């Protein structure tokens, strides 16, 4: 069953057709990676799903409900959560307070402290809980934001380049986190450039090019597809 579908989704910025008739379906329970060269329209598709941009035409359906015109915070309340490319954390607040703000709306007050402690341990941030979030290492900031996104108990988690700027060890640990969340039933849609990471986590891969779906399949099928290799080298046009 599809948890998320886009139907004939189009987005124009002035004369630029950034998202072009995208019919995309995301199965419940899968980890799906979106890849594509720079300017392929990956981030725009993300922003359309999040409600940061409204589509010029087309429809977005989440769990069978049309959310095309819903406000961003309404989509989040329906069970969608996001981790941005640049860590979207509250830098001047402590790590613990960052998580508290994410969790307080969804937990009973008596459960809050325990839940935060559990999440801190999962994120390997127990030692750093009293630090200001702005003083964390880049990788820790990324984890903290994943923690904030996960703290909402989402059914669909959107990750925009979750491993950008991470060391190989941090990338591998992030992959394990994503897989652990997926085992708990969270569907994941990730935009990613790091092919090793995509290989580690993805059940299915979609290649976007010039705002259109160019190819879809498993990572092995995508890697074997010569047309995909060509667009990354700049030889093909959709």
């Amino acid at each position, binding site marked *: 069953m599809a948890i998320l579908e886009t139907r004939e989704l189009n987005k124009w910025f002035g004369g630029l057709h950034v998202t072009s008739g995208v019919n995309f379906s995301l199965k419940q329970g899968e980890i799906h990676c979106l890849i594509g060269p720079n300017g392929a329209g990956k981030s725009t598709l993300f922003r359309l799903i*999040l409600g940061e941009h409204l589509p010029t035409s087309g429809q977005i359906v989440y769990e069978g409900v049309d959310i095309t015109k819903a*406000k*961003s*915070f309404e989509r*989040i*309340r329906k069970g969608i*959560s*996001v981790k*941005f490319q640049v860590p*979207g*954390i*509250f*830098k*001047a*607040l*402590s790590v613990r*307070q960052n998580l*508290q*703000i*994410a969790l*307080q*709306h969804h937990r009973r007050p008596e459960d809050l402290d325990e839940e935060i402690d559990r999440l801190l341990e999962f994120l390997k941030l127990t030692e750093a809980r009293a630090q200001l979030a702005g003083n964390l290492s880049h990788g820790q900031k990324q984890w903290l*934001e994943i923690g*904030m996104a996960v703290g*909402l108990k989402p059914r669909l988690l959107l990750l925009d380049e979750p491993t950008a700027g991470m060391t190989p060890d941090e990338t591998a640990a992030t992959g394990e986190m994503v897989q652990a969340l997926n085992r708990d039933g969270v569907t994941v849609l990730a935009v990613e450039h790091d092919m090793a990471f995509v290989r580690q986590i993805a059940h299915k891969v979609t290649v976007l090019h010039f705002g259109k779906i160019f190819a879809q399949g498993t990572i092995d099928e995508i890697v074997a597809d010569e047309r995909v290799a060509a667009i990354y080298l700049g030889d093909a046009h959709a």
Partner: protein
Amino acid sequence: MLRPNPLSRAIALLEGPQTQGRGTPFWASFAVVVAIACAYPLFADGYDVGNNVYFFNWTFMALGLSLIWGYGGTLSFGQTAFFGVAGYSYGVISINLGDAYGLTLFALFASVAAAALFAALLGYFLFFGRISGVFLGIVTLSVTLVLERFMAQTAGPEWRVGLARLNGYNGMGSMPSLTVPWFGGDIVLFPDVQLYYFTLALLVVSYLGLRILVNSRFGNVLVAIRENPQRAEMLGYDIRVYQLVTFVIGSAFAGLSGVLYTSWGNYITPASMNMTAAALPIVWVAVGGRSDLTTTLIGTLVVLAGFQALTIHGSQYALVVMGVLLVLTVLIAPRGLIFGLGTFLAKCFHHKTTAGRE
């Protein structure tokens, strides 16, 4: 596990990551300061007591701005607009209703409510129209200046509401002072001592109430919006509602200042909403340390006292000094001079106690 007693539970509500000062030393100092403030009229003359009431009057507006700007991250130049709306409303209502039966207290509540309503209306268009940053500052400043211009042209006899003449640039006067109905005769809060205690009590209640608010779950979301509005929204919070509620509460505090000021001096003029008046709250709050209620309060009282002393001795130079003070704050201690001093002292104290243990 021991159950905390009611006092420690109450103190726990007043403390949190959003406010400086916690634990027994802070609250003991707080009690001492309040005790000294209560004892002050016993050894000061009437003029000085009245002058302190004048200082206290402005602190509500500053606390409100600290909430909107320091905690919520929205720079509003409109505090003086709400100050003026409430001040004029108090004049109109109290002149028409008189001061019997505690009706001036009704006028106080109604005028603060009028300021809050005006803030709700303006804030709705600002926040639901997604106006933020410098544009919000420009719109709020414009509203203040438009109100000033409007009130300045109400000199003619046709500009009256019932018995109350608006009087244009000369301002509205002769409204009654706040009066509390009491057994055996009303207490008129005009003699300075009574008004002093009334204003002091309001100030203590407002300060503690705001401390509870900013350390609550609401306060958590508020600082989250200040730090990163996009992230706050992507945690499922309708940030427009939080911003609007904050704006209304902060503006209502400016309204309270307006009523107290009008009642204290029995007059209000359009000049209370002019460019200078609109800029001064920004200076008080920035110099003290806008992101903390305590530093805002101390900073406002210190700057007001300094400003008055300078005005007496140096006339218009006082305003230039205010400008210099703002620039220095931005350059030396962007989080506020009092805030910086507090942090410095806390560090020294912490360093000493750690050194003592080693």
